[in-house]
């Protein structure tokens, strides 16, 4: 990835924030913000990377959290205590892990880096 400008880093940071907000206080709204940011970014730049990362992470979270727990409730039954043992424990842990990954992504975006590799200076 080529070196990045200040405005690219700012957009990357906003994308990471949108991703984190979608996972926490502003579900759906955060995702819409991410989609809107996609159109403001360019291919091969750090801002597009973080928008893509945010979208991917949140889609995975939707599957892992909503779909998986929905399946647990459907298969286990609403009334069974064991359903809630699995759902609450699973949701709490997995949701927290996604929040931590999104937080790390935000920290990396602030310095204009990818999630796991440094961008060339």
């Amino acid at each position, binding site marked *: 990835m080529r070196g990045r400008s200040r405005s690219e880093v700012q957009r990357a940071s906003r994308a990471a924030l949108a991703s984190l907000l979608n996972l926490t206080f502003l579900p759906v709204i955060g995702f819409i913000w991410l989609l809107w940011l996609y159109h403001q970014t360019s291919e091969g730049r750090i801002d597009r990377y973080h928008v893509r990362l945010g979208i991917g992470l949140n889609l995975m979270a939707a599957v892992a959290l909503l779909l998986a727990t929905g399946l647990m409730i459907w298969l286990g039954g609403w009334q069974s*205590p*064991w359903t*809630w*043992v699995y759902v*609450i*424990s699973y949701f*709490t*842990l997995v949701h*927290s892990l996604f929040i*931590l990954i999104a*937080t*790390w992504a*935000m*920290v*990396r975006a*602030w*310095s204009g*880096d990818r999630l796991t590799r440094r961008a060339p200076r």
Partner: protein
Amino acid sequence: MKYQSQSVAKLYFVAAIGLFVGQILFGLIMGLQYVVGDFLFPAIPFNVARMVHTNLLIVWLLFGFMGAAYYLVPEESERELFAPWLARLMFWIFLIAGALTIVGYLLLSYSDLARLTMNDMLPTMGREFLEQPTITKLGIVVVALAFLFNIGMTVLTGRKTVINLVMLTGLTGLAVLFLFSFYNPDNVVKDKYFWWWVVHLWVEGVWELILGSILAFVLIRITGVDREVIEKWLYIIIAMSLITGLVGTGHHYFWIGTPGYWQWLGSVFSAMEPIPFFMMTVFAFNMVNKRRREHPNKAATLWVLGTSVMAFLGAGVWGFLHTLAPVNYYTHGTQITAAHGHMAFYGAYVMVVLSIISYAMPILRGQPAANEKAQVMEMWSFWLMTVSMVFITLFLTAAGILQVYLQRYSDSPLPFMVVQDKLALFYWLRELTGLVFLVGLVLYVMSFFAKGETVTLAEPETA
């Protein structure tokens, strides 16, 4: 080390680790007693093992905080400790008094201990976590005052940094709030109300100042990031801790007979208590990401990052799980509470003490960092203890959810002991995971004795 008097910290750190091992052994005893009720009965009944486990935890963490203060305050103040002899004297007084108290719990019945220590002159015994005889509590006050005097004089006559001042504020708060353990009203509502002025305002109040300042100190040394950046973060973190945590005390006032408005105040303010822990996670990750040096102490870096994550999970997330009054109505006093309590204490306070020990102990022994073999062992111990604590928490959470449903939520609730029987699987799993934790702890202790090639610091640490 920069100042000779920092060496007193080593005594405190060694005692802290020794008492930590004791705490875990008694934790394992209780874990087994959950499922084999007569294990070690009548020699060490459950209630005695519990007092030993919780009191050892608090005392070893206090040793850890004092050691941390004796290490970082001279360095931050840029002067020797005011009275190293006093620090050494208080160490032995605290250790001997603490040991005698534990021996008292184990060898005497609690009522005999109360009689022997003349509890009826000023009754303070009989409350959870504050089971110590009055005379021990008075000893703790003396030790705390001497400690504060020593640290305070060092700070006030030296360079005043944000880290120093936040640490001193936290430690002063710790000492002042402990005085409420002497206030023991007959009225049960007031008794519980003020009990939380020690417990909550410690762990969700002033101890967070201590946690933040220790993290900030280690991060400055390890990353080389500008002091101003780190100290700005520290100010905001501690501000949020106090803004949320002070009125957040109300989440302990839901059901004890206080006015109903506490359900609103406690819920709203305590729901925000994860914020400072989240900020600590962002802070720690950001500082390490922006680091200006590759410090050879990789283990300490891992501990610091791990502290921020586990504190956020244990104190923040798991705390939030049961902090709202409508939820707490069902979960209060269940294994959900135990799940949160274990991960929160480990994540926030155990890990921050292990972080400062990881950073400071090699320096106290004359090296910039532990040798590579020792660090590898230490990092293995980090993962073993941390992952096993996550599983302990998950098993207790599962047990708690089942307990809540069967004992409280269900249309036909079952009695307590009937439900406990149904949770046995989770208690066995918890115990097995606890054994893994012990393996991690043993490895941690062994890491201090591992021999290997000395590491060097590429550039001097600057403050």
